[in-house]
């Protein structure tokens, strides 16, 4: 898949409707990712589903989904109208359901399929996320792979004990790329006056600045473990953060919470800041910076 620029709208943000994805592409995103698409209609959790605390965002949206037919309507609208490639994110409760959703979603002809195996907010319904165990992560990716000809990106969780094992497993299962990482935690925020957790789901995944150093370490480790291209996600809100992620090994960066900190123009701002850094630092192409934070021999030790 060819990106317009290295900034990708991460899944779960401004991705409910096709026209919203088109609007984000109009604001400069190099590619846009839909909200994760599932088979059946779900309302998601009650409010509050998203809060900003002093060091980041915390969310438990709960995978709302209008059902596959409506999701495909939104996806088709985005694919037909977006000036940037559209990545269709999908979720499911079983590996075989992943296959069913992948087959349906592929008919809408997105540029790529993201396999969301790492949502931390639906454990009570779905059980442990696939992305926490190498075998279940691989099974989900294999099911998608068997049902589509589109390139596949697997979205990994920072909560896995060894994210490199998961990355290797999805690589062997046929993933063409990995996106790392989904939100961290889950965490919790308690209001001390009512003595209650604020999120309706009580717990939620952490993103934004608090996630950034962890995401960076995950991408750094994954880069050493696999040959797949990596979309680095977690606290990207500036050119500086994006470049650090690229130097850790990412080929592109995902942006979500960054929209809260920098507005919807964050994509063009980050691109401009990356360009300024490259001009001053003597880099002519992004490729020259990918993985350069590693010692020279690191990539040979796989």
């Amino acid at each position, binding site marked *: 898949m060819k990106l317009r620029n290295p900034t990708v709208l991460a899944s779960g943000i401004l*991705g409910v*409707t096709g026209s*919203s994805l088109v*609007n984000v592409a109009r604001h400069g995103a190099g590619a846009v990712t839909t909200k994760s698409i599932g088979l059946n209609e779900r*309302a998601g959790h009650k*409010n509050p589903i998203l809060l*900003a605390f002093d060091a980041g965002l915390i969310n438990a949206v709960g995978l709302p989904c209008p059902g596959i037919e409506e999701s495909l309507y939104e996806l088709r609208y985005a694919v037909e109208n977006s000036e940037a490639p559209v990545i269709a994110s999908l979720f499911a409760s079983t590996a075989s359901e992943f296959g069913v959703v992948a087959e349906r979603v592929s008919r809408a002809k997105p540029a790529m399929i993201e396999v969301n195996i790492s949502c931390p907010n639906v454990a009570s319904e779905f059980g442990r996320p696939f992305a926490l165990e190498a075998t279940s992560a691989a099974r989900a990716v294999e099911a998608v792979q068997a049902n589509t000809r589109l390139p596949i990106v697997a979205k990994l969780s920072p909560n896995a004990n060894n994210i490199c094992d998961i990355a290797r497993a999805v690589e062997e299962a046929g993933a063409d790329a990995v996106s790392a990482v989904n939100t961290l935690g889950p965490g919790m925020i308690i209001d001390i006056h*009512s003595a209650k957790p604020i999120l309706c789901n009580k717990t939620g995944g952490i993103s934004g600045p608090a996630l950034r150093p962890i995401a960076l370490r995950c991408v750094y480790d994954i880069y050493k473990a696999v040959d797949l291209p990596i979309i680095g996600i977690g606290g990207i809100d500036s050119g500086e953060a994006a470049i650090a992620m690229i130097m850790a090994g990412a080929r592109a960066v995902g942006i979500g919470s960054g*929209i809260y900190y920098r507005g919807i123009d964050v994509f063009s701002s980050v691109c401009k800041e990356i360009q300024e850094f490259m001009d001053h630092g003597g880099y002519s192409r992004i490729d020259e910076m990918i993985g350069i934070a590693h010692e020279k021999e690191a990539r040979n030790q796989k």
Partner: protein
Amino acid sequence: MRLVYNTELPLMLRIERIADEAEDIKTLVFMHRLNSRPGQFIMLWLPRIDEKPFAVSYQDTDKFAITVKSVGEFSEAVHRLKPGDRVGIRGPYGKGFEFELYQHVLIVAGGYGAAPLSFLANQAMLQGKRVTFILGAKKASHLPYLNRLSQAHVKLITVTEDGSTGIRGLATEVLARILHNHDRTGSLSVYACGPEAMLKAVVDICRNLHVAAQLSLERYIKCGFGICGQCCVDELGIRICKEGPVVDLETAASITELGVYKRTPSGRRIAMGDKK
């Protein structure tokens, strides 16, 4: 102590006073300097129950109010609250009304839609504007803010569909008559909030007569600060919680779903007027 960062967390406030506004409509007053603009909204949190958006319906230097109509589980829970109870407030959020540039503020409110407009009327009066307030509803008992608006010395025109008080008919019919007879001296803008069929009519009338207008729109809002994407409208893809809830006439005319459909919390489109 609590350090001050940029956050979106509820501030717990005690309800100072509760006023009965009209049938099934109550106003909750809070002692807090909110610093909102007319048209902006707050998120009202009832711990462990839910959190929903409400337009600011009144504000002065040390207090503000929101107005809640009992329409479902959440608003019924709000109506059971008593003065002294604590609730959470986030915000203010969204884009408010621009009225500084106009001499004549012509307001069209449909029932409970009067909430942000009553705040606008107060602010516009304070700035010496000429304010006309067309307040419409199905029947007399559905008209909120009658006392406050009469005391504020706005030119108040009440309209009811059943003729139980004021003019019998629709608020938009009265708007059309006023605009047709308008002498065009001084700058004028129309401000509207209410049922979507009414807003559609306001858009058509104002576009035909080349009159400026701003409309406050409603969609299902989750985060309230422009991240989750739940309230985006077709085909512009703009966020009602961020680029709205107040939009200008041309923006409203470009929102193709206006008066046609909206999305449920799952994101499914349903025809305007359908419940689920």
